[in-house]
């Protein structure tokens, strides 16, 4: 085996070949430019990520979570750019090894910023040897792909205990599955761990949601006592048996005001002082993403003022809350992929339906596109864990598209939506056109991941949206 680093004629030739594939695949217009070069490179040189990462002399930051990876990484990138640092970044959200490899292959920079799939995290950490790892949350997601949640949490725990001291960690204090990783056997905080969390009791959910994924203490198995929950199982909890309580956050949102689709305002407290965060992205889940990004930015040496300024201007990550005009109707796209994330989107829609816009009286117009591709999770059971009941009574028309459209329509009927307001059109293109034609002035489109790609490609082919790999 040759020496590490991007040296050696053989390795350089492989890099050149993989790069050429990327530009070819993009020119053909078929997409796939965000993964194909990396896939090819890894086939030619399986250790390519580690070898290319050696050139990132400023080190790497990794972001992993079930929900919010792409948005959080985008926020950290924005904060880095305000201080003139432009990271190598897999910004299109391709977050398995080939996505990371593609970014390393095609971008130049002093430091790396990578969102990494939860199940790929141990391997990517081993290859990238990052300076900072942000672990934001663990929710039940695509169980057919990841195995069960606790196994994933155990893999993460092994990783943190192995690397604490050499790698810094930013952890969510409000997620017991994640927070506990930052403490050793005696409950002492590990070296280099920063916690973030929400400290505004006003934002608590009225009751624990069904899709509640952390009922038992990771240490002793006793049920946690929850004082309040904010998003899914993220909240204020304690273990009545073994003192594995919620750690005090170093970066906290102390007063939050949610403003529907317009975003939110939050007072934040950090070790470097307090500030007001104006966030142009909706929902409490994006407050969590912003806190994770802020904690990471501070750890990366970006001042509080710069970081807060960058977050105020942050744009939605690819497909996470974009608004695109289609035939005079403004179509807002919000990705849904698992119960906890979908519940937050549904809460935002309900808020939007009651915020007194002109057509709020009749309810909102919706398009849900449910696919069962591998990247969506082939198992669509999760739609019965998501609280579609939240929007019953707030919907004017709802069109179900995608490969599993009939099952989605059925779920809505049992959530209490009027059957006559529900339509089924499996084709995403025809579904979009019909939903747009029938919408009053605004349409909310909720696609799963591969449905989002289809929708985005469709809008790009009509010249309405930029192609996603640009």
């Amino acid at each position, binding site marked *: 085996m040759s020496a590490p680093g991007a040296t050696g004629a053989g390795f350089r030739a492989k890099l050149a070949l993989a790069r050429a594939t990327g530009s070819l695949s993009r020119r053909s217009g078929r997409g796939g430019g965000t993964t194909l070069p990396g896939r090819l490179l890894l086939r030619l040189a399986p250790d390519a990520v580690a070898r290319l990462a050696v050139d990132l002399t400023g080190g790497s930051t990794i972001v992993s979570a079930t929900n919010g990876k792409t948005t959080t990484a985008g926020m950290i990138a924005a904060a880095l750019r305000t201080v003139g640092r432009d990271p190598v970044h897999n910004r299109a959200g391709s977050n398995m090894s080939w996505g990371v490899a593609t970014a390393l292959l095609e971008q130049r920079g002093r430091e790396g910023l990578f969102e990494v799939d939860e199940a790929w995290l141990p391997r990517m950490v081993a290859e990238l040897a990052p300076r900072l790892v942000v672990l934001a949350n663990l929710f039940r997601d695509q*169980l057919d792909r990841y195995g069960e949640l606790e196994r994933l949490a155990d893999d993460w725990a092994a990783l943190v205990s192995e690397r604490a001291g050499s790698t810094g960690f930013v952890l969510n204090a409000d997620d017991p599955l994640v927070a506990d990783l930052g403490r050793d056997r005696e409950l002492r905080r590990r070296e280099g761990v920063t916690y973030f969390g929400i400290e505004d009791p006003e934002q608590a959910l009225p009751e624990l949601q069904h899709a509640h994924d952390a009922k038992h203490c990771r240490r002793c198995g006793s049920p946690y006592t929850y004082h309040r929950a904010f998003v899914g199982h993220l909240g204020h909890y304690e273990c009545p048996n073994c003192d594995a309580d919620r750690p005090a956050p170093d970066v906290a949102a102390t007063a939050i005001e949610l403003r529907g689709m317009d975003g939110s305002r939050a007072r934040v407290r950090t070790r470097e002082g307090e500030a007001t965060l104006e966030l142009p992205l909706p929902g409490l889940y994006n407050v969590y993403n912003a806190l994770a990004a802020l904690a990471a930015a501070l750890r990366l040496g970006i001042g509080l003022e710069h970081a807060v300024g960058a977050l105020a201007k942050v744009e939605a990550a690819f497909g996470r809350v974009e608004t695109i005009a289609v035939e005079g109707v403004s179509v807002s796209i919000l990705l849904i992929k698992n*119960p906890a994330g979908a519940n937050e989107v549904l809460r935002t829609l309900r808020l939007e339906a009651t915020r007194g816009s002109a057509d709020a009286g009749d309810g909102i117009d919706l398009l849900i596109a449910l696919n069962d591709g591998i990247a969506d999770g082939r*198992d669509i059971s999760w739609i019965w*864990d998501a609280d579609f009941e939240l929007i019953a009574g707030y919907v004017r028309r709802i069109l179900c598209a995608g*490969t599993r459209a009939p099952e989605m*329509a059925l779920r809505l009927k049992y959530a209490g939506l009027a059957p006559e307001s529900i339509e089924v059109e499996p084709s995403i293109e025809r579904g979009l056109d019909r939903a747009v034609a029938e919408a009053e002035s605004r349409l909310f489109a909720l696609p799963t991941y591969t449905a989002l790609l289809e929708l985005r490609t469709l809008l790009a082919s009509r010249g309405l949206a930029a192609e996603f790999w640009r």
Partner: protein
Amino acid sequence: MRLRLLALYPEQMNIYADRGNILFLQRRCQWRNIGFDHAAAGPGEGFDPAAHDLVYIGGGQDRDQRLVADDMLRSKRDALAAGIDDAAVVLAVCGGYQLLGHSYQLGDERIPGLGLVDLETVREPGPRLIGNVAIEAELGNGPLRIAGFENHGGRTYLGDETQPLGRVIRGHGNNGRDGFEGVRRLNLFGTYLHGPLLPKNARLADRLIQLALARRAGAEPELAPLDDTLEASAHENARAAAMRG
């Protein structure tokens, strides 16, 4: 008429949106003006087998399933056995299904089951059995097609005299070898078709309601027909997904 449902360990055994099954039964009873009682029994809690006509148990994560196996032997086994012998309907899905047998294997360890049906769940080399499934069953009212999704590491083998729930048309079933799926004894049904299995199979859901009501009515009651347009197309689509492989 009243359907009296008991959910066992709803806090622990709910990994694949098992609540969808209960919601489905509840709505279909409500729409027919059939009363619906929804009780639950968690860790340490016993129950009166005469007070419930339909008992549901779902799937759990390894840790939860282990806690439940142990607790269930102590606090619920005898009541469940009495209920089954007295024609109570039991629907046991995924992890709940594995618990019904003599034992199941978790890693290298054999965990004792409830021994309510003659079956055994073991580990074998090879991947988890995951994917869409279509089976064909017969629940006393003509051939019944059932569609769903399975995801299990364990392989379940039935004893020679034990009746499966159905035959696999597509998918893996109990063990990926013998073509059987699930188990049936009296009105006890066990299956690997997990999570919201009933929403994909309204005919199966109605059959369970009918059998559960028959227990106290003495005979199987006729169920009022519902507008099942969406239910039928959801079933067809789930089955088509399995047939595509």
